[in-house]
């Protein structure tokens, strides 16, 4: 029998549709693999084995009864712990929400369930999505399947590790400054940050409201498109959700598989993100990819985005400012843990303070303090106000660039996966890792990361970032699918097929009860 866990969601969809396999079989295969390898990878904070098998059985029954089901019905999915799920704890990787089970589902979760997908569990992340390595998870880091001593990226390292270690064919992520794309890059998977407002944020535990966007994490561009079609579209519960009607992303991705799809496409290379200061292997693979694109008929155009140099500075004012306010609600009054002060009277203010002191990790505290400061009277104009102006300038840079080209490309991250602990004591070094991904969040434009090879010096995955004008997510999928096809044709295999096999731990976790 085929190794079900190695199949793409699209392939599984076909097998499920013609009833060659059941959803229960597919789901069990993934759960067993999670049990075998997740002790090492630690992609999951919660595995809902029984619920997943029960849901799979229901989908099988519906299919047997002749119900019309969506293309991804019966396909398992992993859900980033930042999303509210009413049957699973939702902690956002934080101690302060330990064990909290929301009374509601996030809109994207509701849509995933309605489309018949099988939630396997919740994936690890940096606490409240603050980080680029998952080292800031309160529940311990996730390990990169390519090298267990290295970070899987962040904040969505759990979702990226889950798909790249074949624990799940699909995952949901959230991307505030690169939390979908950078983990995708360093794990050799595909991640998409949709246009701001393209996917509902309702039920996504907010980091920075004006930057957050939920999106797909997968192993192929086409799978990402299929998932995007499930989760995207207007949601009246999110006021910033766009009311536009969207074309099928899956159809757009299929269009990219046509011969000659790259011919005449104007591909902009952003001078400021072209690799200066980047790891040599990242630069090398980027250069080779551009050459392949040119050979396939694409027109490579150098463009400049002069204000991108201020992007990190602006981002690290806007994000903490919004986060400091969004995270104010974690006060022990209505949900989450409560910690009483060690001594002195139990006033609500003191209990709030003690709870937040015990419940928040160091990076969260750092950003709350930064944001509180940036919003303070007398500093607002200099910090938050100036950052918003930079944001406008960056949007103009994008407008100017997209006046010349169809898509923009850059490496997804300056380096391959780094080792645990390497940047923990140097927040600035950690922040700089987001230099490539942050501009898209500031401007609200869609971005995708897909694998473009392994860096020769360390044999680790390198990601290509593609960006398109706002609302033209479909263009990302068409171009991305074409690039993916071109690269895989050049290599003669998928990138993830080169990943080391993970050895099952000696005792299957499932025999002791799943964590």
């Amino acid at each position, binding site marked *: 029998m085929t190794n079900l866990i190695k199949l793409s969601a699209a392939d599984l969809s076909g097998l499920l549709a013609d009833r060659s396999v059941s959803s229960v079989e597919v789901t069990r295969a993934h759960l067993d693999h999670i049990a075998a390898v997740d002790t090492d990878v630690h992609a999951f904070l919660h595995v809902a084995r029984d619920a997943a098998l029960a849901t799979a059985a229901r989908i099988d029954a519906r299919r047997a009864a002749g119900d019309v089901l969506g293309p991804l019905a019966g396909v398992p999915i992993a859900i980033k712990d930042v999303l509210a799920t009413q049957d699973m704890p939702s902690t956002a990787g934080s101690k302060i929400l330990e064990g909290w089970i*929301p009374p509601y589902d996030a809109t994207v979760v509701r849509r995933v369930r309605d489309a018949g997908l099988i939630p396997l569990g919740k994936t690890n992340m940096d606490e409240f999505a603050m980080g680029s390595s998952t080292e800031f998870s309160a529940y311990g880091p996730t390990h990169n399947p390519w090298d267990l001593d290295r970070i899987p990226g962040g904040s969505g390292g759990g979702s990226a590790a889950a798909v790249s270690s074949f624990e799940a064919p699909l995952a949901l992520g959230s991307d505030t400054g690169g939390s979908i794309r950078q983990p995708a890059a360093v794990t050799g998977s595909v991640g998409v940050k949709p246009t701001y407002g393209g996917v509902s944020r309702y039920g996504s535990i907010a980091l920075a409201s004006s930057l957050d966007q939920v999106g797909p994490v997968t192993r192929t561009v086409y799978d990402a498109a299929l998932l995007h079609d499930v989760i995207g579209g207007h949601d009246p519960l999110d006021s910033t959700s766009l009311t536009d009607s969207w074309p099928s992303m899956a159809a757009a991705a299929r269009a990219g598989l046509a011969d000659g799809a790259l011919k005449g496409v104007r591909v902009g290379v952003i001078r400021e993100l072209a690799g200066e200061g980047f790891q040599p292997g990242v630069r090398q693979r980027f250069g080779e990819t551009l050459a392949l694109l040119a050979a396939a008929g694409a027109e490579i155009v150098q463009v400049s985005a002069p204000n991108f140099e201020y992007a990190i500075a602006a981002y690290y004012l806007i994000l903490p400012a919004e986060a400091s306010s969004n995270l104010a*609600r974690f006060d022990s*009054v209505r949900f989450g843990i409560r910690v009483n002060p060690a001594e002195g009277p139990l006033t609500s203010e003191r209990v709030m303070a003690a709870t937040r002191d015990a419940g928040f990790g160091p990076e969260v505290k750092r950003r709350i303090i930064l944001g509180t400061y940036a*919003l*303070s009277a007398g500093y607002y104009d200099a910090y938050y106000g100036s950052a918003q102006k930079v944001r406008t300038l960056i949007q103009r840079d994008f407008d100017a660039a997209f006046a010349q080209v169809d898509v923009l490309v850059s490496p997804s991250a300056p380096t391959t996966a780094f080792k645990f602990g390497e940047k923990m004591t140097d927040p600035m070094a950690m922040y700089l890792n987001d230099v490539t991904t942050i501009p898209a969040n500031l401007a609200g434009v869609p971005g995708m990361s897909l694998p473009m090879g392994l860096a020769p010096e360390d044999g680790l995955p390198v990601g290509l970032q593609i960006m398109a004008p706002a609302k033209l997510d479909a263009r990302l999928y068409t171009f991305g699918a074409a690039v993916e096809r071109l690269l895989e044709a050049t290599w003669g295999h998928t990138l993830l097929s080169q990943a080391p096999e993970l050895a099952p731990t000696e005792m299957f976790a499932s025999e002791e009860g799943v964590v």
Partner: protein
Amino acid sequence: MKKAELMDYDKALELFEPVLGFEVHVELNTKTKMFCGCANEFGQGANTNTCPTCLGLPGGLPQVNAKAIESSIRLGLALGCEIAEYSRFARKNYFYPDTAKNFQTSQYDEPIAFNGQLTIELESGRLVTVDIERAHMEDDAGKLTHVGGQAGRIQGADYSLVDYNRGGVPLVEIVTRMIEGGEADSPEIGRSYVAAIREIVKGLGVSNARMEEGNVRCDANVSLRPRGSNILGTRTETKNVNSLRSVERAVRYEIQRQAALLAAGGTITQETRHWHEDTGITSAGRPKSDADDYRYFPEPDLVPVAPSREWVEELRATLPEPPAARRKRLQADWGFANLEFQDVVNSDLLDAVEATIAAGAAAQAARKWWTGEIARLANVAGVAAHSLVHPVQVAALIELVVAGTLTDRLARQVLEGVIAGEGTPLEVVELRGLAVVSDDGPLIAAIDEALAAQPDVLAKIRVGKVQAAGAVIGAVMKAMRGQADAARVRELVLERAGTAQ
């Protein structure tokens, strides 16, 4: 500060000039809350009208209530404000357990309405124009109940309960500019201003406007400036003054308290103060400095509100006549004296009297019935007069009196029947058999009997002492159980006594 330590009011005004400012919060009566679909209802079980958004749960997001925007714009227009072409919500960040998100979704530098004016008339006839700085939208906080310790105070409480039903209810906060020159009228200006706001929101139908339920709440800012100085004094903000009379009392109290303190060489602390209805004093709340930092920033979860000019004009066209203009018009139409009219207004019976007149009653009769017998019965029943009986029934009752079917005394009985739910006035007349006896036959029989029983009276009448007829008339009215027209009885008595002209 005890009352004994207050400065005499006249003395205080001799030494100081009061400067006022008011923040009035109006709770809108929308069906649902400001930013979610939960019911906006008073008096439900604790925390029943809540959802992830108004409970501030992780992942909850706000959606703006379009009706609340409409009500805010109409209120802004009624206050003579300009309506912003582009308005934004902002987060006001502060930690307090009644505020689920630990920020209030309010408006900061881009309010929906600004630059308004409201002219109020004091009892003396003095007109005072209050400048409105802004009217902005925001959500209300939940309600805290402090258990244990002394009488519901947070200090010394064992624990506190939070009810978030009110959390997220739409509010419009109306902020005045500084009001100078109020002088001795300052307390009355406070009362009249809040009364005018209440009247306006009621007329617009945008709020239930019940101060006792907190639908309209007033924060009163008072400071004193020494005569001859042009430097503003330090102000205090007395919070949540919840009746018109209390606004007046609180302003007066603060003037007297601050004057005594300042005259004794003391200083005023910039702070919020609590108003105590029972003792009529204010007490210190929390210090409030101008540097209080709420770290306002534009609410990133909501898109800006940009009402089109066409919509604003459409809404302007729906505005009712301003209450002050309406009062002026009605008093002139009805020809009421000032006191008569004030009586109607103060009893909150303007609408009832207007509707009664519209149903055909004469103005004075309508006024007399509403402020007289109906108000008396309402007072006994402990309810509002206008809730007791429909104006159409009152007009019908008055018509029966005018037609001579009922005397005033009978009409009062009929009114009781109508209130008791026995039917329309006409139905009550028939049911209770209360109509004036207009057939002379039974009257003549009763008169003859009465005259025969009192021959001395008959003799007096016959020698011209007509006033003696009163005793006979009384006996006849008694025999008829009041159901006779006394004037007609008098005519017939004189006729039967043989002295009729």
